[in-house]
C-alpha cells in the first residue's frame, strides 16, 4: 500500500481538528483507510442489521464480563457462606458459588451486571441465529461468500461454547447438572470416552479442576477466537461488498445504497445504544438464572424443570426423546447409543448440514458466477423448504426439551407429548418442507400471473360488441423487475456413462449420478421467470385487457 500523497504547504489544514487529523495521517497514513471506509456504500434494509445486534450484544458481553471477572473467583475450593442471602447462610459451597453470591448481593451494581451479561448472552446467540436465517433464505452465502458463511458458522459454534462455559461457572446445581450430562455424553463416545472424561474433568467427575478450566475457556480462549473471527467476518463483508435485495438497477456488479459516513455511522452508532439499552432494561427488570434458588453444586439433587439455556435446549430435547433401551453391552464394554445418537450424532448431522450447505448448493447448480443480488425466498423453493424443515426439526427438539413445562402448563401427559415428538421429529420436517415448497411455487405462479396480466382492477367493461372483460392494470417497471429478474436453475443432466467406450468402469459415474439426482431434487419443480417474448405475447393476445388505469384510458374504454 502506498502512502497518501504528500501534502503541499498550501493545502495544510488551518483548524485545530484539521491539524490533529493531519498529524495522525502523516504518521499513520490513516487517511486512506478513512476515505475508503467512509465512502463504502451499503444498501439499506432492516434485515441487514440483524448481525449488528449480535455484534453489539457481544460488545456488551465483553464490557459486563470484564466487570464480573473483577469479583468472580474461579475456584472449586470449599468455603462456608455467610452473607445477606438467608437461604444460603451457613451453607458449605465452592468459592465460585460464594463469589457469585457476593458479586450479586454485596457488590454495588453486581446483580445488574450479571443479569445484563446473561441476557446479552441469550440475545447474542439468538441474534446470530436470526442473522444466519436471513443469510440462508436470501442466498447471501453464494459465491463469493461461502467462506464467510463458514466463518459465521464457526462464530455460532463458538457462541454456543462461550454460553455453555459461562453458564457453568457459578457452580450451582442447575449448571452442574448440565456438566454431568456433558460428562455422560463424552463417556458415551466409544473407546476414548472415559479417557476423555477424565482428561476434561481432571479425574472422576466433578473433580476440582473443571471450574478453573472453564474460566480460562470462557474469558480467554473463546472470546479471543470470537474477536478474531468477527474481524475476519467483517473484513470479508467489506472485501465482498454488501449484498442487496433485487430491484431496479441492482445487479451482481454494483451496490445501491448510502455511504457509510455519515448515514450508517449514525444509524449503526445509534443502534448500538438501542441494543445496550434493551439489554440493560432486561437486566434491570427481569431476573435471570437466580443461582441461589438452585444452591451450590452437589451431584445428588436434580430439580424438576432442569434445562439448559435455550441454545442448548435442542440437545436436551434430543436426549429426552431417545428411548433408553438402545444401550448395549458387547463383550463387557458398554455402547451407549441412547446417549451417543441423540447428543452427538443428531446434532452432528444438523451442524454438518449447516456448515456445508453453500457447497452442496453450488455443487448441484454448477453456478460459478458471483452473486450479490439476493434471492427472494420464493424463487428458490427447495432451499426455502429445506431451511424451514431444518427450523422445524430444531423447534421440535427445543419443545421436546421443554416437555415437562408443556405438560404442566397445558395439562397434558408428558408421556404422550414425548411420543408425539418422537414421531414429529421425523415427520414434521418433511411435512414442513413439502408445504413450504408448495407455498413458494404458488407465490411464483402468482408472480407470473401478475407480470403477464397485471393487477386486477375490479372494473368490468362492456365493449360495443357486447363483450365483457375486467380491466387489468399492468405492473410498473420496478414491480416487473422484481418478479422477472431471477434465475431458475434447471436440473443438471447426467452426462457421464457407467462404462467407458472400452468397457472399463467410469469412476466419475457414481458421483455424477448423485449430483444429477440431487440437482433434480432441487430444481425439478420450478417456475421459470416470464420472458420478454411471453410478455409481448400476452400483450398481443389480449390487447384490451391491459390498460394502465389512467383517466385517459378509462375514458377510451368506457
Amino acid at each position, binding site marked *: 500500500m502506498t502512502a497518501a500523497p504528500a501534502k503541499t504547504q498550501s493545502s495544510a489544514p488551518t483548524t485545530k481538528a484539521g491539524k490533529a487529523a493531519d498529524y495522525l495521517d502523516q504518521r499513520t497514513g490513516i487517511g486512506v483507510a478513512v476515505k475508503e471506509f467512509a465512502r463504502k456504500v451499503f444498501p*439499506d*434494509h*432492516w*434485515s*441487514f*442489521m*440483524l448481525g449488528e*445486534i449480535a455484534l453489539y450484544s457481544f460488545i456488551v458481553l465483553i464490557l459486563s464480563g470484564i466487570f464480573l471477572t473483577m469479583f468472580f473467583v474461579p475456584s472449586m475450593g470449599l468455603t462456608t457462606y455467610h452473607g445477606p442471602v*438467608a*437461604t*444460603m*447462610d451457613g*451453607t458449605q459451597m465452592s468459592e465460585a458459588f460464594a463469589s457469585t453470591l457476593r458479586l450479586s*448481593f454485596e457488590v454495588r451494581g453486581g446483580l445488574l451486571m450479571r*443479569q445484563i451479561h*446473561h*441476557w446479552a448472552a*441469550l*440475545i447474542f446467540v*439468538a*441474534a446470530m441465529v436470526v442473522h444466519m436465517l436471513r443469510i440462508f433464505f436470501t442466498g447471501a452465502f453464494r459465491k463469493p461468500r461461502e467462506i464467510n458463511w463458514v466463518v459465521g458458522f464457526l462464530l455460532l459454534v463458538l457462541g454456543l461454547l462461550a454460553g455453555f462455559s459461562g453458564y457453568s461457572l457459578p457452580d450451582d*446445581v*442447575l449448571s452442574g447438572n448440565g456438566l454431568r450430562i456433558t460428562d455422560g455424553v463424552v463417556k458415551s463416545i466409544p473407546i476414548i470416552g472415559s479417557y476423555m472424561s477424565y482428561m476434561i474433568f481432571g479425574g472422576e467427575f466433578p473433580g476440582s479442576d473443571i471450574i478453573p478450566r472453564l474460566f480460562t475457556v470462557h474469558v480467554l480462549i473463546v472470546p479471543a477466537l470470537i474477536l478474531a473471527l468477527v474481524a475476519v467476518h467483517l473484513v470479508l463483508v467489506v472485501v465482498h461488498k454488501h449484498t442487496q435485495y433485487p430491484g431496479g438497477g441492482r445487479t451482481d456488479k454494483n451496490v445501491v445504497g448510502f455511504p457509510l459516513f455519515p*448515514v450508517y455511522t449514525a*444509524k449503526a452508532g*445509534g*443502534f448500538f445504544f*438501542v*441494543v445496550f439499552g*434493551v439489554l440493560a432494561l*432486561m437486566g*434491570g*427488570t*427481569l*431476573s*435471570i*438464572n*437466580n443461582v441461589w*434458588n438452585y*444452591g451450590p453444586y*452437589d451431584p*445428588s*439433587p436434580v*430439580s*424438576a*424443570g*432442569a*434445562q439448559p*439455556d*435455550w441454545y442448548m*435446549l435442542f440437545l436436551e430435547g434430543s436426549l429426552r426423546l431417545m428411548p433408553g433401551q438402545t444401550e448395549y453391552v458387547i463383550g463387557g464394554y458398554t455402547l451407549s447409543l441412547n446417549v451417543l445418537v441423540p447428543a452427538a450424532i443428531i446434532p452432528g448431522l444438523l451442524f454438518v448440514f449447516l456448515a456445508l450447505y453453500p457447497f452442496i448448493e453450488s455443487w448441484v447448480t454448477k453456478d460459478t458466477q458471483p452473486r450479490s443480488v439476493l434471492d427472494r425466498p420464493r424463487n428458490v423453493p427447495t432451499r426455502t423448504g429445506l431451511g424451514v424443515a431444518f427450523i422445524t426439526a430444531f423447534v421440535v427438539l427445543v419443545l421436546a426439551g*421443554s416437555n*415437562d*413445562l408443556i*405438560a*404442566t402448563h397445558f*395439562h*397434558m401427559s*408428558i*408421556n404422550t407429548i414425548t411420543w408425539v415428538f418422537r414421531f414429529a421429529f421425523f415427520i414434521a420436517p418433511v411435512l414442513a418442507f413439502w408445504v413450504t415448497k408448495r407455498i413458494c411455487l404458488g407465490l411464483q405462479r402468482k408472480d407470473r400471473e401478475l407480470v403477464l396480466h397485471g393487477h386486477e382492477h375490479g372494473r368490468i367493461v362492456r365493449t360495443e360488441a357486447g363483450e365483457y372483460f375486467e380491466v387489468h392494470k399492468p405492473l410498473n417497471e420496478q414491480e416487473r423487475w422484481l418478479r422477472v429478474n431471477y434465475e431458475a436453475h434447471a436440473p443438471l443432466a447426467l452426462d457421464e456413462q457407467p462404462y467407458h467406450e472400452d468397457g472399463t468402469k467410469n469412476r466419475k459415474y457414481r458421483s455424477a449420478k448423485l449430483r444429477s439426482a440431487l440437482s433434480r431434487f432441487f430444481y425439478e419443480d420450478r417456475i421459470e421467470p416470464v420472458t420478454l417474448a411471453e410478455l409481448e405475447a400476452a400483450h398481443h393476445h389480449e390487447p384490451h385487457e391491459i390498460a394502465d388505469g389512467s383517466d385517459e384510458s378509462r375514458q377510451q374504454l368506457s
Partner: protein
Amino acid sequence: MKALAARRHHRFAPVVLIMLALLVTGAVYAALAPSSAQAEDAVTTADDIEHGAALFQANCATCHGVDAVGKADAPSLIGVGAAAVHFQVSTGRMPMQSNAPQAPVKPVQFDEKQTMQLAAYIASLAPGPEIPSAEAVDPTLGDPARGAALFSTNCAMCHNAVGAGGALSEGKYAPALWNTTPTQIYEAMITGPQSMPVFNESNITPEEKRDVIAYVVAQRDGTPGGENLGSLGPVSEGLWAWILGIGVLIGAAVWIGAKSS
C-alpha cells in the same frame, strides 16, 4: 338407706360397683386426658364427630363408602388421620368432582369448621397423622438455609427448585407451592397425598419440616433481580429473550432501516 344397706351383700353388688367404677374412670379420663391432636384450640367433641359423620355421609360416602372403607375407585380412609382430611378438603381437592389423572385444586367446598368436623370424624375411626400445631409450622421459627438443603434433596426433583411445580408421568404433576399454607405443606409431608411420598419423622424431623416450610415461604418475597418469570428456569428465560429481546431489537432495526429508504 335401709334398702341400700339391705342389699349391700347382694351377690351382684361387686359387679355393679366395678361397672360404676369403670364408668367414672372412663368419664374422668375422657375429660382430663390430653386431647389427641397436638392441637389446638379446637377440641374435638362427640358433637363434632357427629356433624362430621353427617357431612361425610352426604358428600364423601358415594365414593369412599358409608363406612369410609373405600370402594373400587376411592381408597379406604381408615387410619389416614385428620391431617390427610384437612389437607385434601382445605385445598379443595376433595370432594373430587371429575376424573383426572389426579385430584385438581379447586375452590374450597367446606369452611374451616366443617373441614375440622370431617377430620374429627375420620380421626375417630382409627388413629392417624394429626393436624400440626401452629407452632410446628411457623415459618419464622424455621431456618431457611437448612430448609433449602432439605428441599433440594427431597422436594425439588418434583416441585422445582423453588416450588414452582413440575410434571410427573401420565398427566400427573407436582403442584406449585406458592399458595399452599404452612399447615397444608406440613400435612402433605406427613400424609403423602396423590403421588407424593410420605416423609415421616425419622426421614425429616418435625424441626426440619419447619425449616422446609421456612424455605418455601421465603420464596414468596419475590426475586431480588426483578420479575421472576414464573421461576421456571432457562426455558421461560429463553422465551423472554426471543419474544421480548429479539422482538424489540428487530422492531428497532425495522424502524432504523425504514427511516431513510
